[in-house]
């Protein structure tokens, strides 16, 4: 009988490998890379769990990023995601093989599936994580950089009080995530149950190649059509090509500051973006106003990005927007208002009207490139 409190009987790090239409989602490779790090810190194996129909081919790709094994569950009933089928197969696999950690991408599929699995398995789940650690030294070093906590409070993170006793968190997964719209960060643990489960925000973990021979396993499983209570009638991909903000090296984002002449503002952003080899992003205000599609949105409810260059044009810098872009390597802000919060996280700021500054900046960049 499966018992999620028998901590000692759980072993290995598992990653749910999300595929859509037989293609691996890019987040899967980020998670495999991060899972490799956690597995090495624990001294255990990294395993993928892949559900689909005829997906052995894409399963092999996972070895390139450090997977030791992939548990492949193949059936026409698993070709397209349904909550019921995927929850049953994953929860049954966890009961059989007992991984100590189970990671999902925080996609519209991962965030539907993971809570359902956690509730069925009676274990803890942390949503939309942006940082994961096992090693306590690494975790505390992370806190020294990423928090304003005093040293004595960082030192105290080595244990927690549980039922009146000190519990060492040395082997617990420390799952860090933003809360309250990015105003606060919290590190969550799941000390009394296994597997510790997390959904991980797409685009945050770095993809790292770590090639090895990957072993594919095809365990028996039980899934009948009547287990699935929903019927997927159709899956429709958005007609126009979506903007790949997450993979972009450069993003030129526009905000409410373009309202004076939306068409020209967007054209200037396009021109600057093409000069810098980048794509156009936008604040929530622009998306809500209908000036640009939602796939361009950067921020807490949009996408989290960390390009090499992020140019913010006429964006005031609401905390939700900053939460989605402040990890960019170089941030350039242009805003008429010198007190705009965006300047607090900018590496370079120019106070001025974007309609005047951007054409000049394009000229200057062309000149600087020509001079090289």
């Amino acid at each position, binding site marked *: 009988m499966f018992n999620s409190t028998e901590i000692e009987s759980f072993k290995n790090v598992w990653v749910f490998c999300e595929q859509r239409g037989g293609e691996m989602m890019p987040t899967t490779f980020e998670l495999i890379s991060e899972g490799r790090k956690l597995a090495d810190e624990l001294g255990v194996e990294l395993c993928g769990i892949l559900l689909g129909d005829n997906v052995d081919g894409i399963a092999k790709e996972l070895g390139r990023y450090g997977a030791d094994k992939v548990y492949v569950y193949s059936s026409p009933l698993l070709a397209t995601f349904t909550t019921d089928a995927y929850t049953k197969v994953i929860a049954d696999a966890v009961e059989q093989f007992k991984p100590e950690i189970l990671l999902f991408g925080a996609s519209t599929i991962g965030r539907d599936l993971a809570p359902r699995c*956690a*509730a069925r398995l009676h274990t*803890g789940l942390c949503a939309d994580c942006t940082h994961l650690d096992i090693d306590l030294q690494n975790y505390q070093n992370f806190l020294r950089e990423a928090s*304003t906590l005093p040293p004595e409070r960082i030192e105290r993170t080595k244990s927690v009080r549980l039922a009146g006793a000190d519990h060492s968190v040395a082997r617990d997964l420390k799952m860090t995530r933003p809360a309250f719209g990015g*105003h606060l960060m919290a590190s969550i643990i799941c*000390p009394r149950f296994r597997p510790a489960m997390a959904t991980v925000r797409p685009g945050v973990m770095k993809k790292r190649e770590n090639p090895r021979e990957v072993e594919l396993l095809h365990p028996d499983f039980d899934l009948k059509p009547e287990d699935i209570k929903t019927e997927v009638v*159709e*899956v429709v991909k958005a007609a126009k090509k979506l903007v790949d903000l997450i993979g972009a090296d450069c993003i030129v984002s526009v905000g409410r500051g373009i309202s004076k002449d939306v068409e020209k503002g967007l054209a200037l952003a396009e021109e600057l973006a093409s000069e810098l080899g980048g794509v156009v992003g936008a604040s929530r205000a622009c998306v809500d106003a209908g000036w640009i599609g939602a796939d361009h949105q950067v921020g807490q409810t949009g996408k989290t990005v960390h390009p090499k260059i992020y140019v913010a044009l006429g964006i005031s810098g609401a905390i939700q927007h900053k939460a989605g872009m402040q990890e960019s390597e170089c941030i350039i802000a242009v805003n008429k208002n010198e007190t705009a919060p965006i300047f607090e996280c900018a*590496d370079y700021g120019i106070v001025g009207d974007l309609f005047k500054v951007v054409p000049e*900046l394009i000229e200057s960049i062309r000149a600087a490139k020509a001079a090289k």
Partner: protein
Amino acid sequence: MKIFVTVKQVPDTSGTVAVNPDGTLDRASMQTIINPDDMNAVEAALTLKDELGCKVIAFTMGPPPAEGMLRELMAMGVDEGVLITAREFGGSDTYATSQIIAAAIDTYGVEPEDIILAGRQAIDGDTAQVGPQIAEKLHLPQVTYAGEIKKDGNTLTVKRMLEDGYMTVKVQTPCMITCIKELNKPRYMNIAGIFECYRKDVTVMTYETLKDHPLIDKSTIGLAGSPTNILTSFTPPQKGAGMMLEGDGRDTTDKLAGILAAKHII
């Protein structure tokens, strides 16, 4: 046919957010609002009520002042409110919270034509976990990220939004649907509704009410029954202020382009 809507009172994170020196949120100094996505769930319920004349019941778990929020929802057209409140329920994570709300809904009674609607996620925690976990505890099918809901008899056809498009999903009642903001535009309270709302019932469910339900056990509710624990919470440091360039002319942009070139950024 009944529609249950789960709602949460949350601190307004779009306004001023005050943080205590120990890194916890200073809730006392913050405004509370009805969680925005939950308003879309309420509107979806009221739209179905307008069409079919069914009863809409709002469920919330929280401290006693959350009753005020239930009255606001009644002024919009919700028929009845259920406030789940007890010291024993405090400190619950998403797992424990969904146990308790599922027990409350089950105690009220789910019939074959009923629907449970929830917001996609709450802005304080942004977890999106409680809806699916309630559905699991009640053994009901779920469809999340609903951008469109159509009802035909006991079949719901839901446009479930994805990052790169959508899928159309058919599901039978009883079921759980979580709603996104694109679904609709929530209505306002109306004057008649404001008068009416104090004549409607708010049922209070406490630990005593729910303690004999199979989902309720000291080991599955509250802080002690939550599988997750907070190790620490903290505020991120402000990134050091960068360089503000003087002026907005070509000299300034030349200087910036020069710096970017020197640093091999361009």
